[in-house]
């Protein structure tokens, strides 16, 4: 890729969408088109809320500003610059969140009747995409860390086994990294998958900075993966809901665009697109230095938190050459059970008592998201607050919730199950042997216990009841208390 860059260097100083918007504003074009607020004039409260600058940028697609459904000018240029910055063959501006990027990857790679290999700790957007397109999931058991209670990456042996057992699968999806910063051996997975003519799709929702920082885990594009979904709005600094979809040389960009257009809005927000444009420019020009500081801040916080005693802020020492092939040190995750508090308790105390909001709290851990917007003074607050919480609230450690991975029995595809005739709201204890039509997710460890189309077993029922009792947060079912499940109606033949 470096060679390619040298051959045709692009000027990353440019931000074509943003520049076109600026010029458009200077031209003072009279709007007889949508949006109806007309630069905010028709909605003064909106102007008060967002500011004049912001509402003036909220305009419609038109010739000088290009059109996201079929880019031919400034959006096309912005995408070319992004592809260059990320080392991709093609890049797509996405305005429906990284969820839309993930779903486009899945729907580009496979269709009804085809198989796709997934780690069980996939984001729910992946399985939702299967509800839409009808493909069959083949799950790979992610390794778990027994002490920390978090899902790790996929072991190469597990990936090989899944491929051997399903040689007809068309794609494999990899998290790079997981929410907790854990990376699988992506290069090796790409190698094995490509040997078997499978596409490699990478969920890089938490890995934007890998493309710009130094000494980071390998990126999907550098590893030779075919597609990647990059949450520019997470570590990249763009507006919430904006994202990039990247494609390698083995994927038809025109076909990807068609898939995107199946579900994408035809009124894409220029605020989101311009934010992607300027954020890409910022990272291309200053990302290396910014992420060096992010790493320094996270490393400092890790050291200071580990000095307190009782907390464990983990880092690269987790690396084991396989299921933790690499670790993203910008993720500041702290194991709290040794001070006798669940992660979710520390998470709540920090917000309610100390006015500090973290990214997540699960049974054993809290995760502080360190990014380009962080300053030392807030990190000092976080460290001191953790110290104070230990002083005031620590207690004897209670029983640890032990997660055992339960191999899912996929009876129907997510799509078949989702659209099947259902029996609704069956008490959970009475569902043994039935086929579930909805998700049951448990945090921790954030792995689906059930996805639509999977057989409910006594083991799964026991697990759900135990997780509930231990205070895990269960999400997914129509019954928000998770006491009842929707299942497939059984056809009785008599």
């Amino acid at each position: 890729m470096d060679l390619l860059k040298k051959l045709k260097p692009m000027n990353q100083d440019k931000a074509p969408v943003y520049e076109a918007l600026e010029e458009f504003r200077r031209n003072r074009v009279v709007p007889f088109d949508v949006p109806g607020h007309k630069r905010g004039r028709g909605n003064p409260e909106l102007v008060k809320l967002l500011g004049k600058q912001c509402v003036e940028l909220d305009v419609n697609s038109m010739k000088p500003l290009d059109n996201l459904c079929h880019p031919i000018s400034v959006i096309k240029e912005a995408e070319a610059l992004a592809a260059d910055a990320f080392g991709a063959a093609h890049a797509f501006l996405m305005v429906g969140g990284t969820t839309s990027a993930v779903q486009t990857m899945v729907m580009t790679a496979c269709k009804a009747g085809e198989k796709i290999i997934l780690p069980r700790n996939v984001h729910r957007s992946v399985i939702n995409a299967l509800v839409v397109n009808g493909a069959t999931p083949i799950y790979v058991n992610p390794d778990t860390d027994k002490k920390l209670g978090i899902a790790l990456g996929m072991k190469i042996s597990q990936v090989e086994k899944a491929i051997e057992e399903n040689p007809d699968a068309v794609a494999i999806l990899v998290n790079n990294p997981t929410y907790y910063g854990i990376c699988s051996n992506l290069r090796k997975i790409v190698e094995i998958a490509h040997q078997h003519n499978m596409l490699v799709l990478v969920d890089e929702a938490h890995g934007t900075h890998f493309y710009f920082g130094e000494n980071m885990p390998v990126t999907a594009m550098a590893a030779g993966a075919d597609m990647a979904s990059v949450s520019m709005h997470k570590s990249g600094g763009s507006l919430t809901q904006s994202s990039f979809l990247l494609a390698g040389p083995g994927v038809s960009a025109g076909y990807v665009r068609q898939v995107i257009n199946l579900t994408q809005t035809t009124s894409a927000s220029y605020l989101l697109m311009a934010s992607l444009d300027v954020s890409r420019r910022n990272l291309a020009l200053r990302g290396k230095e910014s992420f060096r500081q992010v790493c320094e801040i996270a490393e400092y916080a890790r050291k200071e938190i580990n000095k307190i005693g009782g907390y464990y802020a983990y880092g690269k020492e987790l690396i084991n050459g396989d299921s933790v092939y690499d670790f993203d040190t910008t993720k500041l995750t702290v194991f709290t059970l040794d001070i006798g508090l669940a992660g979710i308790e520390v998470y709540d105390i920090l917000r309610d008592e100390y006015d500090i909001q973290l990214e997540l709290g699960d049974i054993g851990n809290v995760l502080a998201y360190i990014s380009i917007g962080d300053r030392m003074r807030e990190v000092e607050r976080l460290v001191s607050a953790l110290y104070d919480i230990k002083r005031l609230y620590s207690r004897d450690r209670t029983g640890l919730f032990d997660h055992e991975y339960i191999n899912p029995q996929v009876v129907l595809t997510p799509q078949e199950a989702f659209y099947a005739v259902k029996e609704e709201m069956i008490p959970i204890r009475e569902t043994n042997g039935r086929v579930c039509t909805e998700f049951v997710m448990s945090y921790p460890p954030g792995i689906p216990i059930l996805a639509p189309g999977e057989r409910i077993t006594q083991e799964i029922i026991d697990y759900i009841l135990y997780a509930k009792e231990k205070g895990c947060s269960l999400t997914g079912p129509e019954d928000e208390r998770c006491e009842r499940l929707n299942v497939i109606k059984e056809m009785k033949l008599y």
Partner: protein
Amino acid sequence: MEYWFSEHHTENVKFSVKVDKHLYSNENDLGRVDIFDSLEYGRILAVDGYIIFTERDEFIYDEMLAHIPMAVHKDARRILVFGAGDGGVIDELVKYDSIERIDLVEINDGVIEACRKFFPDVAVSLDDPRVNLYTDNALRFIRHIENEYDIIIVDSAGFYGPGESLLTREFYGSCYKALKEDGIMVNQHQSPFYEADRVETQKAHKRILTSFPISRVYQAHIPSYPSGYWLFGFASKKYHPVDDLDAARWNSLGIATDYYTTNLHVGCFALPAYVERALKDVEKIKD
């Protein structure tokens, strides 16, 4: 020519001082420091556009932070002061022979350097052999310290910016831990008069209440601060601010003051009804 310094006390209220000469201006990532001479208030130190210190009325603020806890504590030897790089509070503390050690933590050493140059009479106290200067973040300095100090004085610049961390629950909790079993913490508590400031006063009061068994508020008149009326917090593990005042002992020390007296000490804890009410509102929602 007229040259005026203005500070917004609220969005709709401005406090202006006629400037004679602008002497110094420096900006770094910790903030902007300005020093100028004025005709009415003498030499003024402003940080981020807020008046921190004026020659004319600094005695009120500094005496009220230093003498209130010193007159209550029976045997204060080790003092920790946050902020106060101007030296004003230290200048009051060095008057006590009984004090053995004063640790001063100021994150912005630019303030200390500038004050040494432009307020040499006040900053001279920073050279007292009992004074130790630390350039450090307050939270980082204090979180590992336990049972070390008799009095902690928090001279924070304001509720926003680098001084913000001095108004947090984690900071007050750390101060509690760093104090000995009969320790006292005093801090500036903002003005209760303008609504935006009052909310911050209430927040600070609530946070201190959750960390200390005794928490009282006292007042002073400070003309150059917003509304001219200012509150301070007195938080303590053991001593009551008025019941445990030993007036005879303090008066026998013969310390010369311009604002503080032991009579005023008793009176300054009596607050106006609207202030009492604002504080009681948050005392009720004690967690």
